[in-house]
């Protein structure tokens, strides 16, 4: 008993000491800290500069991609987006994370095409999955959903709400030191968006250059998914599927000309056969994702 008391006293001391140190404010501007390094070794004459080797990038908004496809003529077709009835199949963490991304893309697709009922259906499944993932804060306890329903006929307000959801998701991940998971949401949303776009893609259609342009970010998307560090998420099939799409695309003759710095993605013209091949790869991965 005496031993336990001694341990307890030690704990109190460590706890109290840590508490006092922890309560000290972080250094403010112009304040000094005790973390002083040796400066004697610095050779002022020499241009000392280090360049970070880490490749850093931002991922675009899936809502913007949906809007670009919309302006290129992508019309709403009932039954091609992931049915909301599939929600009950998503019982694993991986399936929930990925289909949160998929349904977010479907939601943007419905909203941009003024599909009232589909928009309401998709916002509800997105909310359901956000709760199951553990991100209820992004809907502000239901306030945002109520606002969405109230403004359903005001497209500008609805799109502002979707943007708020995106921003809050980013906030949530950042606050929980989970920013790498953004890549998982984004990759799934990207695949769904590409699938929806590919339905009407031919070598003549105006959406095709937009789809090809999206391939310019695929390398970063793959890198970001690979970098996510939650071992409980099984995203190996996602990485494999994305790499297959990239390999297929990079195998096309016109794409090989991208080695020339003067050629950009928007200059690429694919044949109908190549577009079909690319679409098949996208559809295969999309099916694997929505099957949970």
């Amino acid at each position, binding site marked *: 008993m005496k031993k*336990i*008391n001694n341990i*307890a*006293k030690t*704990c*109190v001391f*460590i*706890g*109290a*000491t840590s*508490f006092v140190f*922890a*309560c000290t404010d*972080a*250094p403010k*501007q*112009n304040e000094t*800290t005790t*973390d*002083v*390094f*040796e*400066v004697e070794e*610095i050779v002022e004459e020499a241009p*000392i*500069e*280090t*360049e*970070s080797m*880490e490749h*850093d*990038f*931002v*991922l*675009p*908004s899936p*809502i*913007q991609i949906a*809007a*670009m496809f*919309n*302006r290129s003529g992508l*019309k709403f077709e009932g039954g091609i987006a992931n049915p909301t009835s599939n929600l009950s199949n998503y019982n694993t963490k991986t399936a929930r994370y990925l289909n949160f991304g998929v349904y977010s893309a479907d939601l943007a697709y419905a909203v*941009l*095409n003024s599909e009232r009922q589909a928009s309401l259906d998709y916002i509800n499944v997105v909310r359901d999955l956000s709760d199951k993932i553990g991100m209820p804060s992004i809907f502000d306890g239901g306030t945002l959903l109520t606002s969405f329903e109230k403004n359903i006929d005001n*497209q500008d307000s609805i*799109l502002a709400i979707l943007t708020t959801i*995106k*921003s809050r998701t*980013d*906030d949530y991940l*950042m*606050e929980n030191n989970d920013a790498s998971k953004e890549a998982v949401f984004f990759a799934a949303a990207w695949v769904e968006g590409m699938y929806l776009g590919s339905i009407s893609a031919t070598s003549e259609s105006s959406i095709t250059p*937009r789809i090809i*342009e999206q391939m*310019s*970010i695929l390398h*970063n998307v793959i890198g970001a998914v690979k970098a996510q560090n939650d071992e409980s998420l099984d995203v190996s099939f996602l990485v494999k599927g994305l790499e297959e799409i990239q390999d297929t695309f990079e195998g096309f003759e016109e794409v090989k000309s991208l080695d020339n710095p003067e050629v*950009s993605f*928007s200059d690429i013209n694919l044949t109908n056969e190549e577009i079909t091949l690319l679409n098949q790869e996208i559809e295969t991965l999309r099916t694997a994702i929505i099957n949970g």
Partner: protein
Amino acid sequence: MKKLAIAFFSIATITVLSSAISDTNCDTKILKKEGITELNPFYYSASKVNVVNYDYRASRKEIEVPLFKGEKYKMVFNKKGLPKDVVVDIFDKDKSHANRKSLFTSEGNSAEIISYSPEKSKKMYVRYTIPKADKVKESGCIVFILGYQLTFVTEEK
């Protein structure tokens, strides 16, 4: 006594952990919110928070920003979380290209929130130049927010 010790220890652990997270003197949520306000009328697309460590030598960090052809964008940088200024440069190509063109620089601009709207949209590279520390190691953060102009076509239902 044992319960008291456990309670104290738990509080201390939680506090130490949370103070470590906010060690860089940054409330990134507020900094981001301020940056988003500057986007108007552009819509929020993405954000990037970079922790900046001032060391005994200057350093650089680069971020690739995908901008799609024909789209309109605005980039906002909130530097309020920095104890010492960081120069923001934007280039048309990555650092492997010696002849890359500078599109924007914050050098000489003392504003804490700066923005840049590219005339032409293509992939761009944001570079932060972090000066060396003045004898004392310091850290802070810079928040980058990307906004886009949202335009779309709808059919009357």
